[in-house]
């Protein structure tokens, strides 16, 4: 990892007893959900990581538990550094404190995570779906959500698909 990043990683490790992984030049820090707001505030205020470049999640079902990793990618424009913080969250009741007070951009990003993965954020000012219709059930980007495609219509199955298709009434 970059030389300038080493003291920062060490500070986070000491303060929050976080583990870290390296992959090529990236640093991934693993933090518990309760500590995330403090970690983000520390990085933003003391170490000048002003920009939350990305707030996404990954689903590692069924290989790993905990199932979701919420990923916060922080960038420092002043020092040209970037660090990634991962929060492993369980699948049964995924709850993470909201990062909206630390970074305002997290507002819509967390709504997207709620919509696509079902990860709920405590204290979020506007918790509703953002990309899919409000009455949709299910969270599309989870690994156990069905693909939702329609069977391709060939000549042999055209009639049966035609009967099932919900055509519009006038």
């Amino acid at each position, binding site marked *: 990892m970059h030389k300038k990043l080493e003291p920062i990683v060490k500070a986070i490790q000491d303060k929050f007893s976080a583990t870290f992984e390296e992959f090529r030049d990236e640093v991934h820090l693993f933090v518990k959900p309760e500590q995330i707001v403090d970690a983000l505030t520390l990085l933003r205020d003391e170490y000048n990581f002003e920009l939350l470049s990305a707030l996404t999640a990954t689903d590692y079902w069924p290989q790993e538990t905990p199932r979701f990793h919420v990923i916060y990618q922080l960038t420092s424009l002043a020092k040209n550094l970037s660090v990634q913080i991962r929060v492993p969250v369980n699948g049964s009741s995924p709850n993470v404190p909201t990062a909206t007070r630390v970074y305002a951009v997290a507002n819509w990003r967390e709504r997207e995570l709620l919509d696509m993965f079902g990860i709920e954020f405590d204290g979020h000012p506007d918790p509703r779906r953002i*990309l*899919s*219709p409000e009455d*949709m059930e299910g969270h*599309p980007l989870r690994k156990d*959500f*069905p*693909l*939702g*495609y*329609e069977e*391709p*219509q060939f000549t042999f199955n055209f009639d049966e698909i035609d009967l099932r*298709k*919900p*055509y*519009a*009434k*006038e």
Partner: protein
Amino acid sequence: MGVEQKLGNMGVVTTTLESVVNWGRTNAMWPMLFGLACCAIEMMSAQSSSYDMSRFGMELMRASPRQSDLMIVAGRVSKKMGPVLRRLYDQMPEPKWVIAMGDCASCGGVFNNYAIFQGVDEVVPVDVFVAGCPPRPEALIHGVMTIHEKVKSETFKQYTEKYAAK
């Protein structure tokens, strides 16, 4: 040429009422702007000077559904957009027709997933489908001419059946 040949000396033209009504409907059919995605670019270029749609009576595109007869659904319709599309279709006054332009509006196109309607005829009743991804402006104009032929061949019996049922 045209009507003057048939006028003769008296200035009288005889025809059937159906033909006049259909002629009026086809020659001034105003489409509603409903360009959603990439097909909208081809619709715009069909309307502009190179492949002029004004030749066929579609002089201008009305943004308001209350002032249009034809809805050209150009582009993919997501499940969130479906109720909006239906509401705009319901706001159009009779008589109205729908062209589903492009593959996404006809059958879902390349997007065979949970978020896109597989064909806009799950939302509104469609008269003419134009295939292509995106269809060339000439293909869209062919679709428009097909709608003109369809309207010209309508009879009063069909009108009463269609409009009395609502």
